[in-house]
């Protein structure tokens, strides 16, 4: 017991504010289209993208962030320097009831009820486990999600938010629907990671994959990334709860 206390005291406090840690130089985050880019329309980037996340639109590349895995292949392929990879991870967007900007009754109610104390149920319906491990890391002492009044619970009955990972597989469809039903209203759904956000774009068309999460239940928060780093997940939560 003494050893345990000694270890606890010697370690001290390692918790960081979520925005503190800066991604290292090589970190692969959002790919942006350079403002002054001179796209020749060669489509090399479109052809090289493993998830079909990039398209040419009105003479310049457009990236579907929900399906991008930040591999950087498009950036390498472009001969004209049109694309640049940044380390930006703050890519979460809002959908469903949270998306409308008129300050709707429902949105306010959700934020009033859930804003300061949010309980999350994890739901893996087809993930590679990368997303789930990053979710797990939210509970490590460095990110310590509980400091924000946010915690994970054991049952959907106790949850305000479902954090869903993976594309919806055939074999998990029932579990998704039943868990969604079992969660009391008002409830929020987060599609966590490129698979949950985009469906079969990551693994390709398959007899075993049914689609993206929002084809089955309404999604309020999309967090892109493969997987999104813990900070990106916290960003999504803060955005949803209007606590930025």
């Amino acid at each position, binding site marked *: 017991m003494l*050893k345990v206390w000694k*270890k606890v005291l010697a370690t001290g406090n390692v918790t960081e504010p979520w925005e503190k840690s800066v991604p290292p130089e090589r*970190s*692969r985050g959002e790919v942006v289209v350079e403002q002054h880019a001179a796209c020749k329309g060669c489509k090399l980037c479109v052809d090289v993208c493993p998830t079909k996340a990039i398209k040419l639109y009105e003479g310049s590349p457009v990236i579907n962030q929900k399906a991008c895995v930040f591999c950087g292949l498009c950036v390498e392929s472009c001969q004209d320097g049109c694309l640049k990879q940044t380390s930006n991870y703050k890519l979460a967007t809002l959908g469903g009831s949270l998306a409308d900007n008129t300050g709707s009754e429902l949105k306010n109610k959700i934020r009033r009820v859930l804003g300061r104390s949010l309980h999350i149920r994890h739901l893996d319906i087809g993930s590679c*486990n990368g997303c789930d491990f990053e979710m797990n*890391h939210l*509970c490590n002492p*460095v990110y310590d999600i509980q400091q924000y009044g946010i915690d994970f619970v054991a049952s959907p009955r106790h949850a305000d938010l479902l954090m869903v990972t993976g594309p919806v597989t055939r074999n*998990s469809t029932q579990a998704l629907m039943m868990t969604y039903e079992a969660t009391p209203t008002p409830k929020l759904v987060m599609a966590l990671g490129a698979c949950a956000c985009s469906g079969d774009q990551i693994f390709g068309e398959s007899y075993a994959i049914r689609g993206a999460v929002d084809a089955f239940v309404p999604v309020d928060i999309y967090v892109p990334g493969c997987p999104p780093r813990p900070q990106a997940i916290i960003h999504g939560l803060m955005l949803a709860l209007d606590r930025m």
Partner: protein
Amino acid sequence: MKDYKTIPAAELRETAYQLYADGQNGLMSMFANDERQLNGNYAIYCLFSVGKSMQVIKAVLKDKGKLEFPSITPKISGAAWYEREIYDMFGLKPVGHPDLRPLALHENWPQGIFPLRKDFNSQTPVPTAKKEFPMAGVEGEGVFTVPVGPIHAGIIEPGHFRFSQAGEDIIRLDAKLFFLHRGIEKAIEGVPIERAFYQVERISGICTIAHSLSYCQAIENIAGVTIPLRAQYLRALVGEMERLYNHVGDIGNLCAGMGFAVGIMAGARLKEDIMRVNEALTGHRFLRGMVVPGGVRLDINEQLSSEIRSMLDKLMPDFDEMIELFRGNDAFLNRVETTGIVPRQAALDLGVVGIGARASGVDVDIRRDFPYGCYSALQFDVPVYTEGDVAARLWVRVDEVAQTVKLIRQILEKMPQGSLKAAIPAIKPYSSGFGWCESPQGNNLHWLMVGENNTVYRLYARSAAYPNWPALTVAAPGNIIPDFPLINKSYELSYACVDR
């Protein structure tokens, strides 16, 4: 090893039993391939390790004949899941199999559709069937059943467990897995091999490098390409980084199985430190985007090497202190010792690999037994324990952390100069071969057949968790349900790896 011993399927049992030699030579993997377009046959491949070599039996079934073969499960228990999967995916029936329930395809899948046959088209919608999924249990007076999952209480992967209980004791465990089945092997058929790599890399988050290595080495073996030496060292570096963060995290996670918060948090904190270095090195916390067919994508410089070294310098004393919290702690040891025992013979029969094997007295490590990349130039020991319990699996991990750290230091020291990538040439259509590596959980094997224009004709990906899963059903009986999380975490099997 590109030579397959080809036999008619009717002779499979005889030939396999002979090669198995009552367990002297283990079955490493077994899978099927639809080769009707090539030669009118289905083929079933069985890979055995025979002393210092690997040998492959290829049993062929004529398309027009009866689509069945004699099951080898009666004598080779390790074949049970492989054969069930072959039946699910190809409709080739292992006659004499003791338990031919579906494995990967659930009650929603209609009878008589076999997704890995070439004439199954992914674009055709498959109706949702409403069948029963039979679970195995024990009946009798005083025996009751406890169903758990697929959604669990913690942040873990989904699986459905059925415990048959007599009082507090588990007398049988049956599992329904494959909730995460994404059909990746089918989805990449026809995709160029260098592009399908990005799907393969995503089979599992925590085994990113393992699947990358097996897949790339399969391509390189088939193409006869030797990758540059520097690339071999960089691959070994990320492979060992993957082992390191997994082992440290898994040791901490084991404490979650008994609510020992200080251990959980210490493991989680140390793992975060390693993952940050992963990202500094490769741009990705799970090391994605580093390994590619033909070599690696990124180089290392002096600054990154010293960043890794100083992480290790800081990690090791901290890690040792964490382990000290376990070693002298009777309450802790009481929970882990003699819990979830898998005897050596059971481990051998099931073909258990990796940590599960080494904790049950089976001395295997594919880095040493069938070296790949630069491993034959590196020095490391393979820790083996004989107790087969949760504690033994913990101590194997603890010892391996030290070995892995030693390996990383060696790799950095010996890092040769040179280029990073060799080109993959045009591959003769329908050539096939294996690639393998030792993942954090045990050996990981891929078999690839390349089609026209360097595309994937068939990939079979067998991760370490696949042969290890059935060991849980041996480990659990005789223990109480509250010990199951502990037993489960001592294996830390990746469901995404098994389910694909």
